[in-house]
C-alpha cells in the first residue's frame, strides 16, 4: 500500500468502522461515538476541580477494556475515547478558572489571572469564548505537527538506531524526565530507578520468577493498571484528603451580573492570533519533550504574551490576550505530547501513559518506531491504527470547534460540587474500576499499597511521573539491553560502541548535571509550583 492508501485506510477504519447503532438506516460508527463520548466527559471532568483528564482516562480504561475486550477491534474505540477525554479536559479546565478563580486542571491556573478578572467585570461569556478559541486553535496546530513529525521521526529512529542506540535513547528519556520533573533531579532519578525495580518483580526470562519472596501474592507480578492508578490517582487522593482535613475550608461562590457584548468578534479574534500563534509554537515545542508538562508551557506562553502585549489593559487585570496566551500554550501540549509516544514508544506525560497502557493491554498496537513502517508488499495493521488514531484526534478537534464552546458554557455548575464530597466518590469510582479489571479483592491491597507509595512520594517531594514512566518502559529497556548485549557477542562495553549511543548517554548525564545546579528563586510562582509538584 502507498502512503495515501494507508492514510485513507486509517480514516475509513474510524468513519466506516463497525456501527454502534443505526439512525434512519445510517450506522453510527462506534469509534466516532466513543470520541464524542470521551470529548464530552473530558470537558465535564476538566471543568470539575478535583478531576482531570489523566484521572478520567485512568478510571475509564478498565471499564473500556471490560466492555470492548482485548481484540484488535477494540483498539480504535478505546483509544478514540481516551483521546476525546484528553482533548475535552484540556479545554474544560478553563471553565472554573474563569468563573470561580479555581483551575479545573492544574494547567489552567494561569487562566485565572485574566479569566477571573474578566468574569468579575461581567465578561465571563467573552472570556470563555476566548479560552475556547485559543485552546482549540493550539490543539489543532499541535495535532498537525504531530501528524507530520511523528512518522518522520519514527522512520529515522528505525533506520538509524540499533538495539544499543534504542536502549541509550530510553535511558536518555528516563534521565530527562527524572531531571526536569520536580525540584531535585536526584530524587527524580531515585523514583525512576525505583520504577525499574518494581517492574522487575516477577518478570524476567527465567522459569523461577524473580523478587517474589516465593509468595503466591507476588508470583503474578505487580498489576500494571492498578499500580499506575494507585500511584498517580489514589496517592493524589490521599494527599488531597489530608490537606482538606487540615484546612477544612468551605468556599462561598459569588455570582456576578454579566454585562456588555459577550461575543468574540472576528476583529477580536484577529487581535488574538499573534498571541495564539506564539503560544502554540511554545506549547508544541515543550510538549514534544517528555516530562515537561502543560503547566510550564502555559507559564512560558503567558510570560511571552505579556512581553508582546501593548494593549490598554495589562496582563493580570483581565485582558483576553492573557487568556489566549496561556490557553493556546497549554492546549498545544496535548498533541505534541504524543510525538515521543508514537515515534519512540516513550510516554512523556500522564495522559500518554494511559494511551500506552490501553495499547499494551489490548495488544496489536505497540507505539514506537515499528508502527511507521510503510510496507508496500503487505499491509502493516499498526500503521492503519496509527492513522485511525490521527483521524480520531482530528474528529475530536472538529467536535471541539463546533460544539466545544457550548458544552464548556454549560459546565460551570460542576465547580459547585464541594471537593470533600467529590473526592471520596472518586476513590470509590477508582476502586470499582480496578475491581472491574482485576476481579480480585487482592487488587485493592495492591492499589492501596501503591496509593500509600504515591502519597509518601508527594509528601517527600519525590516526583511520581519518572516512577510511572520507568515502570512502563522497564520491559522495553531490559529487552533492548539484552538484545544489544547478545548482538555484540557479550561485549561489556556494548552500550558505548556506537557514537550515537555515547552521545545519548552523555546528553543524559549532562541533563542531570545541568538541572542539579543550584537554582535561582523563581520569579514566577507557577514555575516553582511546576518544579515542586
Amino acid at each position, binding site marked *: 500500500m502507498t502512503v495515501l492508501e494507508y492514510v485513507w485506510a486509517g480514516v475509513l477504519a474510524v468513519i466506516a468502522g463497525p456501527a454502534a447503532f443505526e439512525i434512519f438506516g445510517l450506522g453510527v460508527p462506534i469509534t466516532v461515538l466513543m470520541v464524542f463520548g470521551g470529548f464530552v466527559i473530558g470537558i465535564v471532568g476538566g471543568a470539575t476541580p478535583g478531576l482531570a483528564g489523566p484521572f478520567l482516562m485512568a478510571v475509564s480504561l478498565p*471499564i473500556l477494556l*471490560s*466492555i470492548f475486550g482485548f481484540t484488535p477491534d477494540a483498539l480504535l474505540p478505546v483509544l478514540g475515547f481516551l483521546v476525546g477525554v484528553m482533548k475535552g479536559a484540556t479545554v474544560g479546565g478553563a471553565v472554573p478558572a474563569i468563573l470561580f478563580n479555581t483551575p479545573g486542571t492544574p494547567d489552567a491556573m494561569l487562566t485565572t489571572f485574566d479569566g477571573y478578572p474578566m468574569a468579575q467585570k461581567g465578561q465571563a461569556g467573552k472570556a470563555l469564548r476566548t479560552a475556547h478559541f485559543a485552546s482549540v486553535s493550539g490543539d489543532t496546530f499541535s495535532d498537525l505537527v504531530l501528524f507530520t513529525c511523528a512518522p518522520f521521526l519514527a522512520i529515522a529512529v528505525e533506520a538509524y538506531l540499533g538495539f544499543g542506540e534504542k536502549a541509550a535513547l530510553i535511558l536518555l528519556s528516563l534521565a530527562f524526565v527524572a531531571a526536569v520533573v520536580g*525540584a*531535585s533531579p*536526584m*530524587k527524580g*532519578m*531515585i523514583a525512576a*530507578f*525505583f520504577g*525499574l*525495580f518494581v517492574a*522487575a518483580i516477577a518478570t*524476567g*526470562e*527465567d*522459569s523461577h520468577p*524473580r*523478587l*517474589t*519472596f*516465593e509468595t503466591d501474592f507476588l508470583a503474578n507480578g505487580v498489576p500494571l493498571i492498578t499500580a499506575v492508578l494507585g500511584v498517580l490517582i489514589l496517592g493524589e487522593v*490521599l494527599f488531597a*484528603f*489530608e490537606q*482538606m*482535613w*487540615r484546612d*477544612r475550608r468551605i468556599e462561598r461562590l459569588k455570582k456576578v451580573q454579566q454585562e456588555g457584548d459577550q461575543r468574540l468578534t472576528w476583529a477580536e479574534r484577529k487581535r488574538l492570533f499573534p498571541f495564539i500563534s506564539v503560544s502554540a509554537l511554545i506549547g508544541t515545542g515543550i510538549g514534544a519533550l517528555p516530562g515537561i508538562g502543560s503547566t510550564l508551557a502555559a507559564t512560558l506562553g503567558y510570560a511571552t504574551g505579556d512581553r508582546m502585549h501593548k494593549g490598554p489593559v495589562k496582563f493580570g487585570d483581565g485582558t483576553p490576550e492573557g487568556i489566549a496566551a496561556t490557553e493556546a500554550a497549554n492546549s498545544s501540549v496535548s498533541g505534541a505530547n504524543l510525538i515521543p509516544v508514537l515515534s519512540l514508544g516513550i510516554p512523556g506525560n500522564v495522559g500518554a501513559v494511559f494511551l500506552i497502557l490501553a495499547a499494551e493491554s489490548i495488544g496489536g498496537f505497540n507505539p514506537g518506531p515499528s508502527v511507521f513502517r510503510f510496507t508496500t508488499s503487505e499491509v502493516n495493521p499498526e500503521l492503519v491504527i496509527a492513522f485511525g488514531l490521527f483521524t480520531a484526534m482530528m474528529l475530536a478537534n472538529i467536535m471541539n470547534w463546533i460544539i466545544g464552546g457550548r458544552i464548556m458554557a454549560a459546565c460551570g455548575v460542576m465547580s459547585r460540587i464541594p471537593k*470533600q*464530597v467529590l*473526592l*471520596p*466518590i472518586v*476513590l*470509590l*469510582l477508582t*476502586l*470499582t474500576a480496578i*475491581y*472491574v479489571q482485576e*476481579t*480480585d*479483592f487482592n487488587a*485493592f491491597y495492591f492499589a492501596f499499597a501503591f496509593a500509600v507509595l504515591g502519597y509518601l512520594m508527594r*509528601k*517527600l*517531594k*519525590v516526583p511520581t511521573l519518572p516512577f510511572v514512566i520507568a515502570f512502563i518502559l*522497564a520491559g522495553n*529497556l*531490559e529487552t533492548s*539491553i*539484552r538484545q544489544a*548485549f*547478545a548482538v555484540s557477542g*557479550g561485549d561489556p562495553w556494548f552500550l558505548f560502541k556506537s557514537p550515537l549511543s555515547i552521545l545519548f548517554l552523555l546528553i543524559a548525564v549532562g541533563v542531570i548535571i545541568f538541572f*542539579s545546579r543550584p537554582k535561582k528563586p523563581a520569579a514566577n510562582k507557577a514555575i516553582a509550583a511546576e518544579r*515542586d509538584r
Partner: protein
Amino acid sequence: MLDRKTEIWVALICLVASLLTAILWVPFDSETPPIYDFRRQTYIGDAMLPMVAALGIAVCALVHLLLSWRRQVTEADGPFDKLTAAFFLSLFAIIIAAFVVMYWAGPIALALFGPSGDEAVTYRQMRSTVPWKYVGFVSGGFILVFGITSLLEGAMHWKRALSSILAIVVLIVIFDVPFDTILLPPNGDF
C-alpha cells in the same frame, strides 16, 4: 525541597535499603546472576535489572545525601506530624471497615435473610442476582464515601448521606446495569 534534616533522612533510608536490596535480596531471589555463561555464550541474567536499579538508587541517594548535607540548616517543619498520624489512623479505620463490610455483608445477609432449609443456597450461586449482588457494594461503598466525607468535614450531615447513596446508585448504573459480564466488588471473589 523539604527541610535539610528530612532530605538527609530520605537519602539515608534510600541508601541503606537499596544497598541491602542489591547485596541480599536480589542475589538470593533471582534464578540467574547479573551476567552468566551458558554453553560458552555470555548472557544478561534476571538479576541485572533489579541490581542496576538498586545500585542506581544507592548512587543517587548518596549524591543527594552529600548535596543535602552541604545545605544550610533552616528552621522548618518536617512533612509529617502528629496530625498526619491521627488523620491516617481515622482514614484507614474507615477504609478497613468499608472493605470488611463490603466483603462480608452479602454472604451474611444471604445467610440471615435468604432461602433456608432445603432451598439453602451459597453466596456464589446468588452473587449475580438482585438484591444480593448489591448488598456488599452498597453498604461498604456507603461507609467509604459517607465516612470519609464526614471525616473531612468533621461532622455528619443527612445531605451527605443522601449524596453518598446517590453516587453509589450512579456507579451501579454505570458499571453493573448495562453489562452482564462485569461483577461489582466483592462478587468476583466468590
